[in-house]
Structures are given as C-alpha cells and as structure tokens.
C-alpha cells in the first residue's frame, strides 16, 4: 500500500465531496430551519459511504463498473430506462455545476455571466481533454479542500453548540402543516444531495481507471469511510454557517455565493478568497465528474471502449459523449435558466433513479461468484438493506414533496 496514494485518495474524496447541490440545499434548509436539519447529512454520508465502498470493492475484485452491473443484473430493457433517467439527471447536474463555475468566475472577475459560461466550458474542455484521470481527481480534490475555510468559519461564528448537537437528532421544529412539508422536502433534498448516483458511477469507474486490485481494498475503505466522513463534516459546516447567519434574521439565500458571507465575516478578505477557491474547485470538480459520469454510463451500457487513462482518440465514443454533455449543458444555460433552480430539480429527480442504481450494486456485492471472500459481510449487508429501504421511501416521496411543498417554499 502506497501511503501517498492513500493520502491523496482520502483528500480527493473529502475535497470532492461537496458540489453545487450542497451549496444550494444546505444554506436554504439551514436558513429556514436553523440547525434542525443536520441529521440528514449524517444519514446520507453513511449511505453513500456504504454503497461507494461496495462499488469500489466490486471494481477491484470483479473489475465491473456500476453500469455494467445494472445492465447485466436488470437486463437490456430496465437498464435502458435507467440509462435514460440517470443521464437526464447527470445532464441536469452537469448544467447546474457549469453554471456554478461561471458564477464563481464572475465573483472573482466581475465579468458578464454569459461570457464566463464560455470560459467555464473552455476550461473544462481543456482539462478533460488533456489531463489523465488520476491527476484530475487530485487537482480538484486537493483544491476542493479549501472548503475547510467554511469549517473554520463555522467554529469562529460561535454557534449555539447545544442547538447544533440537537440538530443531529430528528425532531419536529415546526407547527404549521406547510412547515412540515418544507421540512420533509429539505430533509430529502439534503439526503439526495449526498447520495447523488453520479458519485457511484464516477467512483466505480475511477476504480477501474486506476486498475484497482485486491491490495487496494484498504484504500477503498479509507477513501469512502474516512474521506466521506470529512466531506460530510464540511457539508455540515455549510449548514452551521447558514444556520448561524441567516436563520435568526429569517433571510432566505437565493444565490450560490451567499454562503461566502460566513468566511468573509469571520476571516475578512482572506477568508472570502479561500472560500471562493474552495467553492470554485468543488463545483468545477463536480462538473467534470458529472460530465464523465454521463459518458461512463453510455459507454458501459453499450460496451464501448472508455476511460481517461488513454488518449481521447483511443476511446472516441466516450470522448464525444462527455463533450456533447458539456455542449448541451452550456446551450441550456445560455437560455438564461437559473443554475439554482436546475439544482433543486436535479437533486429531487436523481432520487427517483436511486433504486435502479443501488439495487444491482448490492446484489453483486453480495454475490460470492463475483467477489469470493470479499462479498458483503453481515454488518455491511444490514446497513445496505436498511439504506435500500430508506432509498425506496425517499424515491417514492421525492416528487410528491417537491410539488406539495412548492420546492421548499410552501
């Protein structure tokens, strides 16, 4: 086991944990309910860690990425429906992330948003074209660690720690029925933002890209459990910052950059810039991951050559797939649609894809023919099945809650 690889894997997973969905849902939910919605982040972080660890294990031992499993286990018809649904969600998220990158570039430069959409597209295109998988992960993961600025801000804001601790216990901090619908909508949105299927598509394909073997299982465990735990702490810090600044004044943040008020208030200009760097690379990394996830899914479904370990011409249909994802995303953004609105929709609709994505992972991770002695143990199985039930409940209730709560504005 290479310690540097282990450390970089841990940092990459922690730094790459946050994306635009956390930067939208966490401030919105904390502004409305204070610290009362910290518990969904713990539930979501454990869930994504359990399933990502299984994906990594399947990639290392059976050499199969998630969409291979989906097609083999569910057959052509259901896998095709899953492919269409998951890639619509991937495209929505990629669109929101690219819009987020342009917003961050605008905060840095003050230039026009529309012009910066082309800059964001150009930068992502160059990075994806020239840089190999391993370095992509490292660059965005390490720079994404600047999100620690929000953890420092959360501590410096001196929140009411007693209330913070109470936020980890599900409670009912409302009286009106509309508040209950909003509360449930945000709880599901927060869960959804941490359990986005693109993360497992990307993570398992990454395991194959890096040629994981049995000896890498320990890296897989540390990357998923420790790395995601740190990532979840950063997500919780976002909620604490928003809960401390916005909740007492009943201020509802509408823009992606509003959360930067936390580092700015506590650390001045330096904090603001560090927070902006963290956000830029977190959102940029997620834009890269979602575009690649769409291409991975298509390639794995149809059996095309895929991967970022080789030159673009060696996997041409894979290359064209992520390129088309980027182009379509920018075209959608040029219509003037708000990335925050796309994020809200994408997170809720991604929840619907959960069962079709996560069930095949669980089935194969349990299959001794594929994994031999590395098949799921009892603890993992109990956790995975409990989460599958949670995912099913969440999947069924997501869209009705979106409608009934009017997107959390009930």
């Amino acid at each position: 086991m290479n310690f540097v690889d282990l450390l970089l894997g841990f940092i990459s997973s922690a730094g790459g944990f946050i994306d635009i969905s956390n930067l939208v849902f966490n401030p919105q939910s904390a502004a409305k309910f204070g610290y009362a919605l910290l518990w969904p982040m713990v539930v979501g972080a454990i869930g994504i860690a359990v399933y990502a660890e299984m994906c990594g294990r399947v990639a290392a031992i059976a050499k199969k990425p998630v969409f291979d499993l989906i097609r083999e286990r569910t057959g052509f018809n259901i896998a095709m429906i899953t492919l269409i649904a998951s890639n619509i969600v991937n495209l929505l998220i990629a669109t929101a992330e690219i819009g987020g990158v342009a917003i961050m570039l605008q905060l840095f430069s003050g230039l026009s948003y529309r012009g910066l959409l082309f800059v964001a597209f150009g930068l992502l295109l160059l990075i994806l074209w020239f840089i190999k998988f391993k370095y992509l992960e490292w660059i965005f993961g390490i720079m994404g660690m600047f999100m620690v600025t929000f953890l420092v801000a959360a501590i410096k804001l001196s929140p009411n720690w007693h209330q913070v601790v109470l936020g980890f216990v599900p409670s009912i901090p409302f009286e009106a029925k509309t508040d209950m619908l909003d509360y449930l909508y945000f709880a599901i949105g927060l869960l959804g933002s941490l359990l986005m299927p693109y993360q497992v598509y990307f993570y398992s394909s990454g395991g194959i890209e890096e040629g994981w073997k049995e000896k890498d299982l320990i890296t897989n465990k540390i990357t998923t459990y420790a790395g995601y735990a740190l990532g979840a702490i950063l997500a919780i810090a976002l909620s604490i910052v928003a809960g401390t600044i916005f909740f007492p004044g009943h201020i509802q943040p509408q823009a992606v950059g509003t959360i930067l008020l936390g580092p700015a208030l506590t650390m001045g200009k330096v904090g603001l810039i560090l927070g902006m760097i963290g956000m830029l690379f977190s959102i940029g990394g997620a834009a890269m991951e979602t575009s690649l996830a769409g291409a991975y899914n298509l390639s794995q479904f149809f059996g095309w050559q895929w991967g970022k370990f080789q030159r673009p011409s060696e996997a041409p249909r894979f290359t064209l797939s992520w390129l088309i994802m980027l182009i379509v995303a920018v075209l959608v953004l040029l219509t003037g649609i708000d990335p925050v609105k796309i994020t809200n929709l994408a997170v809720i609709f991604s929840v619907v894809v959960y069962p079709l994505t996560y069930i095949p992972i669980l089935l194969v991770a349990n299959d001794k023919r594929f994994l031999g002695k590395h098949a799921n143990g009892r603890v993992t199985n109990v956790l995975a099945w409990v989460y599958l039930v949670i995912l099913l409940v969440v999947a069924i209730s997501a869209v009705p809650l979106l409608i009934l709560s009017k997107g959390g504005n009930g």
Partner: protein
Amino acid sequence: MKVLEINLEPRLMDCQIIDVDGKRCGKVDDLVFEGDVGSQLKIKSILVGPRVWYSRETGSLAALLSFFIRSNKLIEVPWKYVVEIFPIVKLNVRAQELGLRALDTKLAGILERIPGG
C-alpha cells in the same frame, strides 16, 4: 408447446466483450444456438449490434430507440473466438477483424488530428 428454459451459468447475456488487445468492443446482445431436437444445444455465436436491441425491446421504448439509433447493424461473433466467459467475455481475435469497433476506428482518425487527441 413446450417452453424450453435455459439457465446460462455464469450469465452471458449483456456481458462486456473485450478483444485480444483488451479493447472493449460491445456487449453480448443476444446468442445464437444450434442443435436438433433431442440433441445437445450448443452456442453457435454471439450477436452484437443495434438490430438485436429492437428485437429485445417492446412498445414505446422500441420506437424511441429506433428513432434515435438508425443503425441496423448486426455482427455475428463465432463462438470459436471466445476464450473466456466470466466475468468478461474475452475474444482471441482483434475487434476490427470481426467488424466490431468500426465506428471507433473512423472517429479515432478524426480525433487524432486534434492536438492531444
């Protein structure tokens, strides 16, 4: 009429196929069997390509597929080229020799002209 159920262990259908160079070159979209009544049934070949997808689909999904994917291509990979079936189907021949990855070869020629491609 008697319905014959065949349980292929390990599963073959929808498995990834890789060629002798380790290149991914399609999925097992369908299988062709040979053998007379009363004799042992053997796999004759693997079918790869869009034409099989339509036959596996039904209703609106089939219509959607045929609208977006106009290709009617079908490639038959003789079973004699298969050297391994689990967990991935491995061939002992280059994909291009069987007509697989033809589009990849064309597209690669274009992408190679771009710097870094």
